[in-house]
């Protein structure tokens, strides 16, 4: 019965509109019991990474068909949602967690070694061998162990099936991954590829590896940097063989290339980037359905066809991107002022309980929007025009499912908040208006940008201010007052991007410090007001604008 229901839910997810072929299956309901294993703070290669790699690979195998294992990452983990989600799963899904000791691989193997057919041994002298071992783990159902852990694996009946010790000594990464490609890529998932980057060198935070192993993905940390032509060539070959509009999980390597370079390349192939490298427990959460009594409902303040009239004043709208999960959601002040939050839309299938947690936890002042640029993290200028519609169809369907009416766009393929440009040419703006006919409007940028338009009552606005995490309150207030000076017409529409870990409390203090009275409104109201009084000039990226490829 359970498998029938699981199939039903997988089918239901497919009809949500996921462009790729096999979304993760869901169980009919959350399990009554699951195992919780706390992980230590140490993510050094010579420290606790070996035991964490063992546990994460075991999690991926044990959770392959049903959710059994949830890893409790440390309080300092970038995804601070890990801890609130435990309480939510207990309260709303009635899961009882059996807690093991911290990093207790012996106890974990006692329970879950039966899901493995043996072990793959990585070479502690070659960091990249661990990334290859993740690929092998998923394909061959093997737990990832280091040499020191062989006796422990043996104790639980896990014998080495693949031994990478000494295999890659002295080899560059492109050669190591070429070997892995030749050996394993044909059998790997075409729906998921994992770029196991992020922290580099002496540290590794492979939080996404459980899901990659569960899905039998190919892992690498190949570089998108032209300075590494052999790695780039292999990476292009891999991306080119993945299914259309499939998912690239993880994050670029901090030691090899840049976010701009990697995300641009992923976009060139019409694929979906979904970060980060340390996103945890997806093999568990992706299988947990929404509770039957829940439906995604946003705090709408205006009807789609409603018209508002702007007054002669300054309107401010604050938008937090990336802040649900790694930012300010759980920090002081939320609910104090109208605030807009960008939803990680793919979490509807990757992490349904977390999205349910956010939607149920919202205050009347919290308003949700979709992003970034489509279904995942992508740069529209980098996406070939013929690949754009398929991706955006998925984006539309995710927005409908999540009750979202505004799309946030970001493009760092030709610049960033320091140099180059973050604007869109008219033809890309045209594509968005064509693909999203039902939205209230669009917002653009991450840093500031200057792409503005208004068509059929739907504004296309860019950020006029970026609130840096470290910007002092008094300087930020002076920044806003300067913008108000620089834009003397009223109404003036000041769209403000709040970097994720700034708290609502800080933003509220900044706005309280302004000498000119402003009205803070949620984004749907802001866009309706902006539609009524076009004090902003239509502007698109110009051929003469500076370009910086994020080297």
């Amino acid at each position, binding site marked *: 019965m359970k498998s029938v229901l699981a199939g039903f839910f997988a089918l239901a997810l497919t009809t949500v509109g996921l462009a790729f072929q096999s979304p993760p299956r869901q169980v009919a309901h959350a399990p009554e019991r699951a195992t919780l294993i706390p992980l230590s703070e140490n993510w050094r290669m010579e420290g606790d990474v070996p035991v964490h790699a063992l546990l994460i690979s075991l999690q991926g195998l044990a959770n392959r068909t049903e959710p059994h294992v949830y890893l409790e990452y440390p309080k300092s983990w970038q995804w601070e949602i890990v801890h609130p989600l435990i309480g939510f799963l207990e309260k709303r899904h009635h899961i009882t967690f059996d807690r093991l000791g911290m990093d207790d691989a012996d106890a974990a193997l006692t329970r879950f070694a039966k899901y493995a057919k043996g072990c793959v041994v990585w070479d502690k002298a070659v960091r990249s061998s661990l990334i290859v071992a993740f690929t092998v783990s998923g394909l061959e159902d093997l737990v990832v162990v280091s040499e020191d852990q062989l006796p422990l694996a043996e104790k639980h009946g896990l014998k080495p099936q693949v031994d990478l010790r000494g295999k890659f000594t002295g080899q560059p990464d492109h050669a190591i991954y070429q070997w892995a490609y030749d050996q394993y890529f044909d059998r790997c998932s075409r729906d998921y590829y994992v770029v196991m980057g992020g922290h580099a060198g002496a540290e590794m935070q492979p939080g996404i590896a459980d899901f990659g192993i569960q899905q039998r993905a190919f892992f690498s940390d190949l570089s998108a940097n032209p300075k590494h032509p052999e790695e780039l060539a292999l990476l292009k070959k891999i991306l080119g063989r993945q299914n259309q509009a499939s998912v690239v999980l993880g994050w670029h390597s901090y030691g090899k290339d*840049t976010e701009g370079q990697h995300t641009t390349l992923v976009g060139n192939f019409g694929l979906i980037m979904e970060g980060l490298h340390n996103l945890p427990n997806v093999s568990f959460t992706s299988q947990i359905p929404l509770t039957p009594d829940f439906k995604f409902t946003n705090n709408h303040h205006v009807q789609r066809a409603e018209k508002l009239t702007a007054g002669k004043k300054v309107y401010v709208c604050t938008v937090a991107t990336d802040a649900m999960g790694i930012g300010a959601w759980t920090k002081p002040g939320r609910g104090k002022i109208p605030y807009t939050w960008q939803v990680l839309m793919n979490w509807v299938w990757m992490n349904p309980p977390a999205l349910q947690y956010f939607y149920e936890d919202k205050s009347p002042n919290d308003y949700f929007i979709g992003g970034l640029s489509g279904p995942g993290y992508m740069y529209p200028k980098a996406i070939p025009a013929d690949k754009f519609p398929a991706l955006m169809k998925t984006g539309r369907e995710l927005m409908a499912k999540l009750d979202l009416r505004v799309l946030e766009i970001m493009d760092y393929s030709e610049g*960033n*908040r*320091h*140099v180059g440009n973050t604007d869109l040419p008219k033809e890309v703006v045209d594509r968005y208006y064509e693909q999203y006919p039902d939205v209230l409007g669009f917002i653009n940028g991450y*840093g*500031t*940008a*200057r792409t*503005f338009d208004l068509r059929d009552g739907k504004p296309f606005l*860019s*950020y*006029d*201010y*970026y*609130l*840096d995490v*470290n*910007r*002092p309150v*008094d*300087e930020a207030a*002076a*920044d806003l*007052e*300067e*913008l108000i*000076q*620089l*834009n*003397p*017409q009223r109404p*003036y*529409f000041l769209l403000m991007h709040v970097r994720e870990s700034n708290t609502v409390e800080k933003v509220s203090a900044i706005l309280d410090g302004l*000498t000119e009275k402003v009205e803070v409104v949620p984004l749907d109201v802001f866009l309706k007001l902006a539609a009524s009084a076009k*004090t*902003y*000039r239509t*502007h698109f990226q110009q051929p003469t604008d*500076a370009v*910086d490829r994020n*080297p």
Partner: protein
Amino acid sequence: MSHRPRPFLALLLAILPQLVLGADGSTLTGTWHIDLARSTDLSPWKGYDLEISTSADSVTLRRKLSWGRREFIDTMTVEPGAAETIVPVEMWPDNRHLGAYIGAAKARHVHAQWLDGHRILRLSTDLVLETQQGSRDVNILSDYKVSANGAQLTLTELRSTRSRPIVYQFSHVAPTTP
């Protein structure tokens, strides 16, 4: 332990002021590195290096703003006392977190003057910034002042559109010996 200066050290101390003076005798000459802890928040940048060279009738200022791999470098030469110098500029890097961009002319009009016996360089800069609502004339008054001992440089900027002054403190970077 003797407290009497050694001959070589005494000679060095005697000629040091001449070593850091420019051709026109200004103590501004040299390389300066920002002291972030004592300065107005520099966001979005994290580094600011300033090189100033002087001649009898001109001053050249080279600034490098940086944030990791990202950097912006510009150089301008002005003539103190002259009516105006027009300096081409590719972008307005002073505060990239504001939606304000260099105007279509991509130029700054700079009037420079020496004050207090070449201890202070004052620049009055006029430029046009473009915002979502159009063009806006902006004036920036910049004072470059060197401390009495020549070790610190204070750059104070008053922007006509901003209520708060911006104050950057720099430390002198000693020339490296070959």
